[in-house]
């Protein structure tokens, strides 16, 4: 009996602690959505702390009718899609070669990629930006290539270690059936690494989607800006229209939250892999 009460009290304290931290995580977002549904007068009354009575969607309408947010969104989708596709193919090819094939300086080159992953390069964006200027690549192509490089080392490392754990039998069978190396990679290697590819895709997609520094240096036109830079622009332009800004932030945050809730495992794996090896 005594043991029971003690346990219940312990659980009660524990969950109070956990729930209060959880509320601190969610609270600001509830405030954000609530505020985005208020009118500006309602907001100046209650500061978004009362439930939005009018439930007005005019902020969303305003943000969406102004085509800029769409442009930012599509730009981000474009950059993310192209970069992730490039990374998947390039890093999978390289990882396959590092794991299965043989060529001169194999280990040295792999070690080079590993070292690059571990050396912190704060302000690496400075020389990259100067370089892009010199090459005349201050445009979409340059941005995508630079972002591809950012995810490359870690992706190669993750895929290489995954290839190492796979048995070779299937590849041998494919070879006997007359596939060449490229066909083996495409037909056997790539499909077999699907679980690792999922992590690589999520990690890189989030990385590109959330990137701000290089994009803000490179793109000064609205037509080229990705979402993160665009949000700063929207904020600076509408600095007194709090409810409007909150609507824009909600539109930017909700798709990511929904994706995260649906693919939570890959998100956590992708982000911690990025942290652990990056």
């Amino acid at each position: 009996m005594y043991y029971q009460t003690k346990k219940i009290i312990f659980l009660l304290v524990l969950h109070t602690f956990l729930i209060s931290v959880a509320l601190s995580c969610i609270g600001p977002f509830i405030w954000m959505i609530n505020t985005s549904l208020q009118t500006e007068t309602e907001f100046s009354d209650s500061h978004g702390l009362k439930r939005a009575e009018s439930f007005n969607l005019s902020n969303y309408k305003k943000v969406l009718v102004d085509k800029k947010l769409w442009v930012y969104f599509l730009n981000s989708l474009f950059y993310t899609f192209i970069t992730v596709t490039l990374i998947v193919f390039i890093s999978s090819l390289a990882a396959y070669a590092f794991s299965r094939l043989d060529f001169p300086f194999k280990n040295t080159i792999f070690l080079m990629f590993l070292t690059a992953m571990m050396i912190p390069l704060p302000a690496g964006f400075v020389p990259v930006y100067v370089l892009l200027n010199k090459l005349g690549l201050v445009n979409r192509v340059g941005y995508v290539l630079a972002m591809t490089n950012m995810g490359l080392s870690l992706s190669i490392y993750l895929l290489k270690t995954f290839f190492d754990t796979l048995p070779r039998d299937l590849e041998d069978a494919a070879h006997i059936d007359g596939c060449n190396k490229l066909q083996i990679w495409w037909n056997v290697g790539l499909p077999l690494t699907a679980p690792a590819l999922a992590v690589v895709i999520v990690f890189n997609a989030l990385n590109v989607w959330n990137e701000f520094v290089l994009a803000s240096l490179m793109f000064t036109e609205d037509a080229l800006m990705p979402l993160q830079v665009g949000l700063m622009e929207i904020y600076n332009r509408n600095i007194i229209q709090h409810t409007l800004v909150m609507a824009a932030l909600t539109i930017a945050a909700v798709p990511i939250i929904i994706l995260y809730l649906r693919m939570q495992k890959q998100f956590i794996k992708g982000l911690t892999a990025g942290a652990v090896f990056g």
Partner: protein
Amino acid sequence: MTEYTTNNRFSSFSFIIPALVIFAVFYLYPFFYSFALSLYEGDGISTMRFVGLNNYKTALCLDREWWRSMYNGAFITFLALTLQNILAFALALGVNKTVRTNKIYCTVFFILPVLSEIIIGLLMREILKSDPGVFNQILGKIGLGGFASNWLEGEKTALLTTALVHCWRGFGWAFVIILAGLQTIPEQLYEAARIDGANAWHKFTKITIPLLMPVLSLVFILTILGTMQVFTMILALTRGAGGLTEVPVMRIYNHLRGGRLIGYACTEGVVLGVILIAVSFVTLYISKQMRKHYGVLPN
């Protein structure tokens, strides 16, 4: 070794050519280029003047604002190391004790690291800034109105607020790594300790902490590296608050944006990079000594 892996080394080598080209152009070249640039003065595009180690002299000895930004970064890092990681550790221990609800807690705690620094920064700016003063209103409502303050721009509060927001954003990430570490500790060890009559404190200090040492030192190093380079969130949150919350990378970014101090920006980058590498080596060394001390990982 099967035949197809050894024949024709050139065609094998061609598999890594795309990766190697991008890596060489966008990593290797800029890496050495930034050392070269750090010896020059100018905007990097038209006029560059060779000034030798002058930039380093300025950065190391003369530039007070640079060291102030380093201090700001170090302050935020210190709070992240202590407050954020202790909170993450406590939460991980707690969630590890719960049975059915642990999934929900994991989901909630990890939302913040998933969202971009810009979204978090702008959202917290709207809440904390003193013009509509949402946070001050909340304080007033729960009877703490006396604490209301100019959180983002006040001379005493700006840096602390920034550090706290950073910890709030980052704890979920440390939490997930520590929790994963906790779940790898075999249950039998605790079982055996219980039979031997160990109490909760003994179990914690003699089993949990030593076995978690590798994970904790990893979190430690990653917190240092990550926090010293944090900048986007602070840009969105305070814009530097007139130097009060300026961090090293923000300064570098501003030099580059201003367009005239590219060489100096590279110098600052190199200085920060060297310091970070040194700090992570020292941390690695200490954690190895501690693991030796606990006898967990002799090699």
